[in-house]
């Protein structure tokens, strides 16, 4: 009724009020009394609805008492009508507890999750735990979602409602251990709506998902690896952690790929490309990246990966990277000197020259001079080599 007072007065006073309202205090007292003195569930429900509508923080202790009692008295409600009303009341109280972040009620809310046989009420209790950031329950909610992810529940609709609550709870609690179950939920048996929600909320769970992403990259197939790596790259994790993850991803992407299984090899290549793009964009200069970057250049699944590999080496720019680039330029130059000039070599050579220039490392200079003086190259390659050399002057 206070809500009405708020809105009614709003209309009268010709401007909107803020969150809290008028006449809150005695109304809270009165509805608390009505709640306490009510003997049937409907009256209690009505009183609680009015209490929550008051938008008054002081109702929180009343709601804590209410949820404790609701859990304790669940077996008293046996008819279908009572059970429905009971479920609605648990939802209502849980929502209020979440709103006021009444952390004292967390054990009772978890009891609702475990004991109350109403998926909407359970889901609302999970969301309330999330809203109050009940960190102590992050592990339990993560475990619950992990279990739900595995296989459709007997009542899929009920399982989906629980998963929905778990996902939102974990997104609000923001504990890193919620990342993996929500990640798997984004690809589990649920409806598109729930899977989409999980994917959408993954970035909210933690600013630095490096640890769970690393585990996923080590253990999952190439498609999930790629999805996890994208999340890491887009996250607010420290740059050095992102670079380390990308290097690991690139290395594993080469190690685990079986070139004889074409579809898988293509998926692994796509995964490695994400890692290479990340290393380029992050300006990775870690010597540990050189070997897998070189492997992408020499053994990449397609030209795109090869070009990204050499570009990443150029960005790397370390002596190790410069030596590798110089070595590749020598191979290409030898081929062309032996009459093996073709479009592909021209393309790779131009990319390698650009990478060499990007290193600004004197190690590559002799090879650039050599190429610039190898007349078998096309004019575009010679021009590139000469332009690159100017960068060293």
């Amino acid at each position, binding site marked *: *009724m206070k*809500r*009405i*007072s*708020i*809105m*009614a*007065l*709003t*209309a*009268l*006073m*010709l*401007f*909107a*009020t*803020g*969150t*809290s*309202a*008028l*006449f*809150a*205090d*005695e*109304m809270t*007292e*009165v*509805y608390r*009394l*009505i709640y306490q*003195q*009510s003997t049937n569930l*409907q*009256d209690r429900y*009505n*009183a609680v*609805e*009015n209490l929550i*509508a008051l938008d008054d*923080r*002081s109702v929180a202790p009343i709601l804590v008492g209410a949820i404790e009692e609701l859990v304790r008295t669940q077996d008293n409600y046996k008819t279908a009508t009572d059970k429905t009303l009971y479920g609605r009341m648990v939802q209502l109280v849980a*929502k209020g507890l979440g*709103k006021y*972040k009444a952390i004292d009620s967390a054990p009772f809310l978890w009891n609702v999750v475990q004991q109350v046989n109403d998926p909407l009420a359970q889901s609302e209790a999970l*969301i309330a735990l*999330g*809203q109050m*950031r009940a960190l102590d329950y992050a592990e339990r909610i993560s475990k619950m979602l992990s279990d739900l992810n595995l296989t459709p529940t007997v009542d899929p609709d009920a399982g989906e409602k629980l998963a929905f609550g778990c996902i*939102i709870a974990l*997104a*609000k609690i*923001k504990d890193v251990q919620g990342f993996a179950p929500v990640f798997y939920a984004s690809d589990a048996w649920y409806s598109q*709506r729930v899977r989409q*929600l999980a994917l959408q*909320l993954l970035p*909210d769970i933690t600013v630095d998902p490096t640890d769970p992403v690393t585990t996923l990259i080590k253990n999952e197939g190439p498609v999930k690896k790629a999805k996890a790596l994208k999340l890491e790259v887009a996250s607010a994790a420290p740059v050095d952690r992102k670079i380390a993850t990308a290097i690991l991803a690139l290395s594993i992407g080469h190690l685990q790929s079986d070139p004889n299984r074409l579809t898988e090899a293509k998926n692994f290549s796509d995964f490695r490309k994400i890692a290479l793009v990340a290393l380029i964009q992050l300006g990775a200069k870690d010597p540990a990246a050189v070997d897998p970057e070189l492997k992408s250049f020499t053994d990449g699944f397609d030209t795109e990966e090869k070009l990204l590999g050499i570009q990443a080496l150029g960005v790397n720019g370390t002596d190790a990277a410069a030596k590798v680039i110089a070595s590749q330029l020598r191979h290409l130059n030898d081929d062309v000197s032996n009459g093996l000039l073709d479009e592909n070599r021209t393309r790779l050579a131009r990319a390698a020259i650009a990478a060499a220039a990007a290193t600004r490392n004197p190690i590559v200079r002799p090879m650039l001079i050599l190429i610039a003086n190898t007349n078998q190259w096309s004019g575009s390659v010679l021009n590139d080599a000469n332009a690159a050399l100017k960068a060293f002057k």
Partner: protein
Amino acid sequence: MLGIPKMLAKAGLGATALVLVMSCASAPKSAPKPAAPAPTAPVQKERTVTVRTPVLVKETVFYPDGLVDTYTTYTYDDSLNRLLQKTTFDPTRPDFIEKVVSEYDANGIHTDDLVYGSDGSLKVRHDLTWTPGKLLASEKGQDAKGIPQFSSTYAYDQAGNRTEWKAFDGSGALRATTTYAFDSNKHLMLIEMRNAANALTGSIKVSYAADGSTETWAYLHADGSPEKSEVSILKNGQVLRFEVRRPDNSLAEATDYTYGPDGERLTAVLSDAAGKVKEKRSFDYRIRTDQKVETYYE
């Protein structure tokens, strides 16, 4: 009405936001000057003034770390006079949490509010009636099936102060009566709450510092023992701080407010007894401007 500073504090507004005369928008419509220079009685004049009214359009609730918990948007008619809809969202949820749609009759009288849950279904309907003086006379709540859930009636004195509130259950049985007492200056002084048997269940004593710097609501149990108190610390009619105190008068929690140039509340920061922030709120407004003819004497 009730204690104005506290009322405004809870309404999310500063006193000056009610009506703020900003400037003269046209020349005064003055009477002819008297011919004789001798002193004369003040002359009644009129002038048109522009009134700026902050209209709340968004309220955002933040966690202490600055992340958004929920936000509520307020939608009005084109003139910004009538609130049409209030919708609360949680950024992590795909649908709104709750939506309240206000309806008005042909005369612009606010007749009801429809409360919808996150699934879009109607949860509660609140019907309102008003006194001829546009004071809330009654409210009646019913569920989606039209089954009555509760109702209230209100009574007022000639000055428009609320003097009584009666709360009824869905069957129409009286459950509680609350009375309000005022002093000769129309300051709310005492609220008494009684159950269906008319037995006192509790009371609230309201007191004001002589210099207007504080307003205290002391909550008492039926036997007169203290339950808690709420202290509003005021400056120029605005609540700067709202404290909730335990029966031993120790601080339980406090909310600090800031205001904008039109008296509109901008922020509210809730802290625990140790000063640790528990929640932050911010308020966004649009400014409605109205022309008003004002009488003055010169």
